C-alpha cells in the first residue's frame, strides 16, 4: 500500500526527491572527489621514496648540489637515491610543472601515447598542456624562458594518467638544469632506505659534509600532510555544503507543509476507518522511507554522473587549483560505503522527521480533529 501511495503522490514525491537531490548531489560529488584524490595521493605516496631531502636557507627551500647524491648513496641503510628537479615554467601561456628526472628508472611509470624519453632534448607532456598547445608526439616545444632550447615531444600522458601529470612536462635532469639555468643543481633527492633505517639515514644525511641545511620529510610526515590537506578541503566543502543543505531542507519542509492539509485529511480518514496510530505511522514511514531511499539512490547516480562522465565540471576546480571549469578528464573519485551510508541516513532522517512528527501529532487526535 505504501508503494501505491508513493505512486499516488507523484508530485509530492518528485518535489521532495528534487529538494533532497539538490542538497545531496553536490555533497556526494564533492566528498567522492576528496576521497578519490586522497586515495590517489596515498597510492603515489606508497610508491614513492622513503625520504625527501630538500635544501633549506632562511626557512625557504634552496637547490642542492647534484653531486651530493653520491654521498647520500654511501650512507649505511640507503638502497637507492634519485635526484629530481621540480619547478614551474610557463609554456605557451600555461604554467607547467617541470619535472627533471634522472633517467628512465626515475620516470613516472604511467601509460602514455608515444614513447619514453630516449635522450636529451626530449620531453613527455601532460594532457592539459598537450591540449592547450595542441601537442602530439614528435611535435616541437620551446619554453619562453629559453626559446633557443627546443624540445621534442616524445610522448603524451593520457588524461587519466593521474592528477599530477596533467600540467606536467617531464624531461631529463640535465635538460631541466639547463632550462632553469642551474647546472649541477637539483631541487631534491628521493631516498629509498632499508626498513627501519629512515631515522638513522635522515640523521646521517643532515650530518654530511657540504650538504648544508636540509629539510627531510619521511613518508609518514608527507602522508600526514596529504591527509591534513584533504581533510581541510573536505571540511571546508562540508561547511559550505551544510549552509546550502539548510536552505534545501527548509525548502523541502515548506513543500511538505503545503501537503500537510492533504496529509491531515488522509490521516483523519484512515483513523476514522479504524487504522491504529502505529499503522498510520508505519504507512507514512514506509512511503516516505521509500521516497527518501529513491532520492538517495538517485542522488548517488547523479553524483556519479557528475564526477564520472561529467568530469566534475565546475566542481573540480574547487578541489584542485588551476583546473579549468570543465577539466579535460575528471578527478579521481571514490564512492565508499561510508559516503553511501551517509547519503541514505541523511536522506531518511530528513524526510522521516519532516513526515512522521506532524503525522504522529495528527494521528493522536480524534479522527475528525486530525482531518479537518
Amino acid at each position, binding site marked *: 500500500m505504501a508503494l501505491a501511495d508513493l505512486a499516488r503522490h507523484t508530485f509530492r514525491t518528485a518535489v521532495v526527491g528534487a529538494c533532497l537531490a539538490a542538497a545531496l548531489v553536490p555533497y556526494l560529488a564533492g566528498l567522492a572527489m576528496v576521497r578519490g584524490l586522497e586515495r590517489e595521493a596515498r597510492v603515489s605516496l606508497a610508491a614513492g621514496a622513503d625520504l625527501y631531502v630538500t635544501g633549506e636557507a632562511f626557512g625557504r627551500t634552496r637547490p642542492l648540489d647534484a653531486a651530493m647524491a653520491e654521498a647520500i648513496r654511501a650512507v649505511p641503510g640507503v638502497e637507492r637515491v634519485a635526484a629530481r628537479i621540480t619547478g614551474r615554467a610557463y609554456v605557451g601561456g600555461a604554467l607547467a610543472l617541470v619535472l627533471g628526472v634522472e633517467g628512465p628508472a626515475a620516470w613516472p611509470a604511467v601509460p602514455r601515447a608515444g614513447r619514453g624519453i630516449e635522450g636529451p632534448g626530449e620531453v613527455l607532456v601532460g594532457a592539459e598542456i598537450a591540449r592547450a598547445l595542441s601537442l602530439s608526439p614528435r611535435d616541437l616545444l620551446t619554453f619562453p624562458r629559453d626559446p633557443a632550447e627546443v624540445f621534442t615531444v616524445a610522448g603524451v600522458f593520457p588524461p587519466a594518467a593521474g592528477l599530477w601529470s596533467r600540467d606536467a612536462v617531464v624531461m631529463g635532469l640535465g635538460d631541466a638544469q639547463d632550462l632553469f639555468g642551474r647546472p649541477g643543481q637539483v631541487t631534491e633527492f628521493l631516498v629509498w632506505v632499508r626498513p627501519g633505517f629512515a631515522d638513522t639515514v635522515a640523521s646521517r644525511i643532515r650530518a654530511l659534509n657540504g650538504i648544508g641545511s636540509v629539510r627531510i620529510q619521511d613518508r609518514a610526515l608527507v602522508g600526514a600532510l596529504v591527509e591534513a590537506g584533504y581533510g581541510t578541503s573536505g571540511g571546508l566543502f562540508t561547511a559550505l555544503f551544510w549552509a546550502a543543505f539548510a536552505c534545501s531542507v527548509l525548502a523541502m519542509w515548506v513543500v511538505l507543509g503545503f501537503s500537510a492539509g492533504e496529509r491531515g485529511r488522509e490521516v483523519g480518514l484512515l483513523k476514522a*476507518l479504524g487504522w491504529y496510530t502505529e499503522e498510520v505511522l508505519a504507512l507514512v514511514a514506509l512511503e516516505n522511507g521509500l521516497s527518501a531511499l529513491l532520492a538517495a539512490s538517485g542522488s548517488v547516480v547523479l553524483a556519479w554522473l557528475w564526477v564520472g562522465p561529467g568530469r566534475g565540471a565546475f566542481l573540480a576546480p574547487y578541489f584542485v587549483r588551476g583546473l579549468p571549469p570543465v577539466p579535460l578528464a575528471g578527478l579521481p573519485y571514490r564512492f565508499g560505503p561510508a559516503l553511501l551510508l551517509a547519503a541514505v541516513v541523511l536522506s531518511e532522517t530528513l524526510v522521516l522527521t519532516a513526515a512522521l512528527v506532524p503525522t504522529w501529532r495528527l494521528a493522536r487526535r480524534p479522527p475528525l480533529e486530525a482531518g479537518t
Partner: protein
Amino acid sequence: MIPVRAEGVEKVFRSRGGHRVTALAGVGVEVPAGGFLFVTGPSGSGKTTLLHVLAGLLRPDRGEVWWGEDRITGLPEPRVTRLRRRLAGFAFQRDRYLERARVWENVTVLLAAQGVGRRQRRARALEQLGRLGLADWADHYPWELSGGQRQRVALARALVHGPGVLFADEPAAQVDPDTAGLVEAVLREENARGVTVVVASHEALGAKPGDRMIRLEPSGRRGGAAWRSSS
C-alpha cells in the same frame, strides 16, 4: 449486535474568529442491539455532529457515549480506535476518500491495514459494490463518480469489514428514488442480520414500526441544540 447509548452530549465548535457554535446541547439517545435509529432534523441541527460523536470520531465537550459496556468517551483515543475498527462502520456524507486510489481500493482501506490480501480485498469490495449497484465502477477513481455514487461507495466501505454497528450520514441524500430504495434495502438487510444501524437524514423516510427516531432542532430556535426522540 451492539447497543449504542448517549447521555447529556454537548458539543461546541469554536470558529477561528472566536465565535462559539453550539452544535449539540444535552442530547441523549439509546439504540438497542440490532436496533434502527433515525437521527432527523433540518440542516444545521447537528445530525452529523451527533453521528460523529456516537461513532467516537469526535469527542463531546460533555456527556457520555457507550457502545455496549464500553464507555467510549472515557477511553483513550487508541482504545476507541480499536473498538471502532472491530465494531463500527461509518459512511460519511462529505467526500472523504483517498482521491488517488481507485474505488475498490477506497472500499477496502481498512482491510489493507488488517493484512487481507489484495485479491481477497478486491473480491470483498466487488461484493459490497455489487449490492449497491456499483460493481462496474470499481476500477474508477472517486472523482469520476457522481455525488450519489460516492455516497454509496462510502456505504460499501463502511460495510466491507462486517461491523456490529453502522453509522450512515445522509446515505441517500443525493440519489434518485430507485437508488434510495436500493440503499434502504441494504441498510435493512444489515439490520436484519443484527447490525445496529444509526442513520442521519432530513426525514425518516422508510421508517418502520420498531425503528427509533430522534429529531434535532437548530440551536438558534431553542437557545441550544434541542432534541426529541420517539420510538
